[in-house]
């Protein structure tokens, strides 16, 4: 297995998109093999549903498993004694998804995130201002995706400020102090898309406050579902951040708790870009065949990070579209894409359960 550093430097020597993808495919093949050897449930699934899979064919041939499976069964490729942390994410269906990290995978998450952050945001540590409150947890505790995200980003922070008290109330005075101190310095704001919109920006509007952070960047992620329900577009989001918070550079990121660290940042053209560590494939709604660029379908995400659990290739519940392979106006190379939301809930037909929640 190559280290993240080796992957990074090798990837830089490759010139064409084709070479880069072949290299990424070989890394993913290694992971498929690793998990087949060490995770019996995964091996059974691959043998049953991907019987034609052969390593070194193409990246589209890499087997994938449905994201819902992490909520149904424990998937581990290392002995329980090697697990240093369980990452929990609560899905909309109420079941909790568990991802088990060993030391190597946990460190690789940070290394990959660092590489991606340095390329997309800033190469030096700058103050971080979090639109959330400070969650406390002990080492070894299982943590949720929201905490994991800001803990991950906090490694790029020279100092950290939390904008909320424990009751999720925005601390307006603190925000004013921060503005005085950092008005003309590089800082980054970080928060969940919906929290920024609903808690931070609403509060500023309510109080009639307009701030100015001309050199700041706002990084947000966690999904558009709630904002799509409110019919808020990415453009409107950016405009309101500019207007109220006075931050001009707004970067949305996309990623899964099941592939923590492997993020995709938006470029100036508002497209998400793949990285040397992660890739996206769009699959057909009906038969899961690979969709052409420009076609809308189900998002499959691939990442070189997961070694302690078989999550290197996941079929998500998101809908997306690949725009192209190279050629984005932003000049960044590689595959660029858009995420268009989540698959709609299906109608339930028949008599399974009842009085319950429907």
């Amino acid at each position: 297995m190559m280290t993240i550093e080796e992957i990074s430097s090798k990837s830089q020597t490759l010139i064409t998109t084709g070479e880069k993808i072949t290299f990424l495919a070989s890394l993913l093949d290694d992971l498929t093999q690793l998990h087949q050897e060490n995770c019996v449930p995964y091996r059974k699934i691959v043998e049953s549903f991907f019987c034609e899979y052969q390593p070194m064919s193409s990246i589209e041939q890499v087997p994938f498993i449905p994201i819902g499976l992490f909520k149904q069964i424990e998937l581990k490729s290392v002995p329980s004694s090697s697990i240093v942390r369980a990452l929990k994410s609560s899905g909309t269906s109420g079941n909790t998804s568990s991802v088990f990290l060993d030391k190597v995978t946990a460190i690789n998450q940070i290394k990959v995130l660092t590489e991606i952050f340095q390329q997309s945001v800033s190469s030096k540590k700058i103050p971080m201002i979090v639109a959330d409150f400070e969650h406390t947890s002990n080492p070894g505790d299982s943590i949720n995706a929201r905490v994991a995200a800001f803990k991950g980003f906090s490694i790029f922070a020279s100092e950290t400020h939390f904008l909320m008290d424990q009751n999720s109330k925005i601390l307006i005075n603190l925000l004013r102090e921060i503005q005085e101190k950092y008005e003309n310095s590089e800082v980054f704001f970080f928060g969940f898309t919906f929290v920024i919109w609903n808690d931070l920006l609403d509060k500023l509007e309510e109080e009639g406050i307009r701030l100015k952070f001309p050199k700041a960047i706002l990084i947000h992620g966690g999904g558009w579902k709630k904002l799509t329900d409110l019919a808020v577009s990415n453009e409107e989001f950016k405009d309101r951040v500019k207007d109220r918070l006075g931050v001009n550079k707004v970067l949305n990121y996309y990623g899964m708790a099941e592939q923590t660290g492997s993020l995709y940042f938006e470029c100036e053209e508002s497209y998400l870009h793949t990285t040397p560590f992660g890739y996206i494939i769009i699959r057909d709604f009906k038969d899961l065949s690979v969709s052409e660029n420009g076609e809308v379908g189900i998002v499959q995400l691939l990442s070189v990070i997961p070694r302690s659990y078989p999550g290197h290739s996941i079929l998500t519940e998101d809908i997306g579209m690949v725009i192209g392979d190279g050629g984005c106006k932003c000049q960044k190379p590689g595959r660029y894409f858009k995420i268009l939301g989540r698959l709609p809930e299906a109608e339930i037909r028949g008599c399974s359960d009842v009085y319950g929640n429907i």
Partner: protein
Amino acid sequence: MFTGTSNANFEILVGDHTALAECPQISYFDSKVIKFLKELSSAILSDELSRSHGDVVAFAYWIRSSNLDSAVQKYTIESNRTGYGMCMHIAPSNVPLNFAYSLVCSLLAGNRNIVRVPSRIFPQVDFLLDRVRKILAIKEFHAVAHAVCIVRYERNDQVTRELLKFSDLKIVWGGDKTVNQIRSIPTPAHCKEVVFSDRKSASIIDEKSLAGLSEIELFNLAEKFYTDTYLFDQNACSSPRIIFWISSPENSFSKERFWSALATVAESKYVLEPRNLLLKFTELSKIIVTSDMKKIMGGPGELLSRFKYSAKGEPLSHQLTNRFGTFFEHDLANLDELAPILDSGIQTVTYFGVQPRRIVEFVIRHRIKAIDRIVPVGKALDFDLIWDGYDLPRTLSRVVTFT
């Protein structure tokens, strides 16, 4: 007096929720009830608008005149029956019209009724209730109207508890979770209960009989099997999830013919929504991981998936979580081999090429707890006054003895 109206989501759709303790004004197989049902049936069947609701039409067809007349004939031999009084119905949230069947059974038995319909809004429920309201408003059905109160509310134990206070009888549909949930709500000590727990269903098909079918007959059978299964994503308790083949080595090709006919029917009719495709993928993976079952064919992107059943592990009814066009199958040399496989969670058996009488005899001979209902392929979803082994009009009424 019921006070649950303080709940903002509590809606009375039909009838009156006051004076719930009053006795019914209808009797067992009351002629006014029969007449009301017949009128309801013809009102729906003659209404062009009802054509867009297949389930409403099926219900109207079920309460058509001739069907009711034969029920009257069968049940009114006993003259010493009367309703219990007030019956509360908890209908499943995801089978829109289940409540209507439940209500009809209880009205025939001579009870007053409070019916909770699904909290989710279904157009066919509103369509049906609109017709019910119109007919109940006719003066001659005053006594029937007194027996019908239909309500809609979000899951709320407090409201359910208030309603159950007046109940002499309760009917709970929808499975183990709901049954246990409703059981935890106190009811008057004398309140009877009829509950429908989680059930799963199977098919028994004879390979030799199958081999004798022409291509057209085979497709007809596949269409019927499709209706029993794919139509409700196999979620219905009476939808078969496993086929037991009475095998005939020289005719074993016939099952492949059947599956390929079924796949063709599914290709032309079935829409697997993307969300359900993902769910199917997850569920298939879980089967592979947690059981010894082997896939015969059909991955997550295909409409027909087959698994070789393995009896190892949990009871059959717990293993039958498969749906969205996923079938387990198992070869039998004869029916008797089935006895150790079945458990009390198995409700309906649909059959082809096997004498139903033989299946009844098999159940009785082996004294197994499984199988309440044996119907031909194509009839799995047809509701009957006898359901889950309960003769509903009789179960929902009492006998007054005299000597």
